[in-house]
């Protein structure tokens, strides 16, 4: 007996068309397998066994009516319509969530930033108010220079040469008080809180805006020239109000004060580098020049100092000013320019007047 070919059997079982045909199902070419059997007479046994194997597994399909299948189908389809609707809602909600998330991030950042920033500002402010009120700021316009100072309340101050303005970093609610040594022009911003200028003369209480104060330590007289608004000079309980166009002269030694209506130009022109002197002693002119040009004067004869002058200088060099003064009076200037010594220190220029 010829050996049974397992391969033939397996290849038949592996052929789905064969399984269908063997089961008795309708296949495209049912003749094919009849012919195969005829053509492979040596493999009849394998063929028959494969057929038997297939037919043995004739599984019965569970009994379920066509009607039930139709019903189940319809139910599944109806559910899909509902689900599609909910799916649509879900998709829409998901998109909305995404949009919300995208919008939420910058919102969160912005809110956090704002809160932190505000908190930081508050902290900075309160720490400044609490801890740094006593640490006052001093701005100095050194000799030979002018400076503009912006105060914390927005007020503006022009500082003339050799002047110093001291003020707190933050004005407290009970008042804006600055301290002046020298000359300054004030442009005070409007505010409920009073603005005071302490100086060598009476304290200036500011009710308006623009005025000039000349209060150098070395000067005998403190002058306040009011341009606009209203200021008062307060001294030991009394208060003297100035009107625009008026200039107050306070004599430091006698502590007396008088007010005059003057051409304010003379008191304000320093800001443009201009100096106007009317009936001014040589000494007072020399004090201005000392501050503006950083030189020292030496009078050979002290009496020369009281010589009265009328002069106007604007952005002129020291030498040019000397020439002008020499022309109008019997005096001579001997000018030694300032220089840097070996140690790098500046030695002031010296002017000898004969």
């Amino acid at each position, binding site marked *: 007996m010829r050996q049974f070919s397992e391969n033939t059997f397996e290849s038949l079982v592996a052929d789905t068309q064969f399984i*269908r045909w063997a089961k008795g199902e309708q296949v495209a070419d049912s003749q094919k397998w009849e012919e195969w059997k005829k053509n492979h007479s040596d493999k009849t046994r394998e063929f028959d066994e494969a057929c038997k194997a297939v037919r043995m597994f004739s599984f019965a399909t569970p009994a379920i009516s066509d009607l039930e299948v139709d019903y189940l189908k319809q139910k*599944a389809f109806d559910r*899909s319509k509902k689900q599609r609707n909910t799916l649509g809602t879900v998709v829409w909600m998901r998109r909305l969530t995404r949009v919300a998330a995208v919008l939420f991030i910058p919102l969160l950042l912005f809110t956090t930033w704002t809160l932190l920033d505000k908190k930081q500002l508050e902290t900075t402010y309160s720490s400044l108010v609490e801890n740094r009120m006593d640490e006052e700021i001093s701005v100095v316009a050194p000799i030979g220079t002018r400076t503009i100072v912006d105060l914390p309340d927005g007020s503006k101050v022009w500082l003339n040469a050799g002047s110093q303005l001291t003020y707190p970093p933050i004005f407290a609610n009970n008042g804006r008080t600055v301290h002046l040594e020298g000359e300054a022009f004030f442009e005070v911003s409007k505010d409920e809180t009073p603005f005071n200028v302490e100086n060598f003369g009476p304290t200036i209480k500011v009710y308006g805006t623009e005025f000039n104060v000349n209060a150098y330590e070395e000067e005998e007289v403190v002058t306040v020239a009011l341009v606009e608004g209203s200021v008062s000079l307060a001294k030991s309980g009394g208060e003297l109000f100035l009107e625009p166009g008026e200039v107050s002269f306070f004599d430091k030694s006698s502590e007396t004060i008088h007010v005059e209506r003057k051409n304010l130009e003379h008191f304000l022109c320093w800001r443009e580098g201009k100096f106007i002197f009317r009936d001014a002693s040589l000494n007072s002119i020399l004090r201005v020049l000392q501050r503006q040009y950083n030189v020292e004067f030496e009078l050979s004869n002290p009496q020369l100092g009281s010589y009265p002058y009328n002069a106007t200088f604007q952005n002129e060099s020291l030498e040019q000013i000397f020439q002008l003064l020499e022309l109008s009076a019997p005096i001579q200037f001997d000018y030694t320019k300032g220089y840097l010594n070996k140690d790098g220190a500046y030695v002031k220029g010296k002017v000898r007047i004969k």
Partner: protein
Amino acid sequence: MTTQNKNWDNSLWNKFQQGDNDALGELFQERFRELYFYGLKLVPVAELVKDTIQDLFTDLWSRKEKVKEIANINAYLMVSLRRELLRRASKIRTQTDLDEASSQYFTFSSEDFIIGSETELETRNKLVAGLRHLTSRQREVIVLRFKHEMEFKEIAQVMDLNVQSVRNLLFRALEKLREEMNVGDSVDKQDVGLVLFAFFKEKIKFS
């Protein structure tokens, strides 16, 4: 009972892919009994199997974008049904139940087979007895091949095996079944030819 070939399935599927909802309805009617049979062999809870099959189709109807990715609907349905049924069944079973259950997959009784001229009653009883000696996976591969007429490639997908393993599993199952069915058989009975797979015995004799 399947009288259509696979091409028919695919033409319905292609129609549905092009937007014809009725085509999927037809496919449902055509495939339902097979899926139901297979499902019941995995988890013998009729309502659960019906629900799961319906949900598979509901899903296809409502998620059109997913449909385009499915090339082989036959394999897809079997793979999905198997995965989803086992998942759902695991929820209603305790762990000890599960361990027992896996050995109960694909158990058969004589009611599962058609009694016809081809299969004699005695053979069928032997078959039912023989199948009990196979593993559940061996029984499953037999069902997938002979009942569902799935190609080895498709079975590999469903059972998560490679094609060669499917072949080996199937032919080893048939061999084991033949051995079990022939226990106690006399040579006479072989001659009668009622016992199937007698050739295996001969094969052993000759080899």
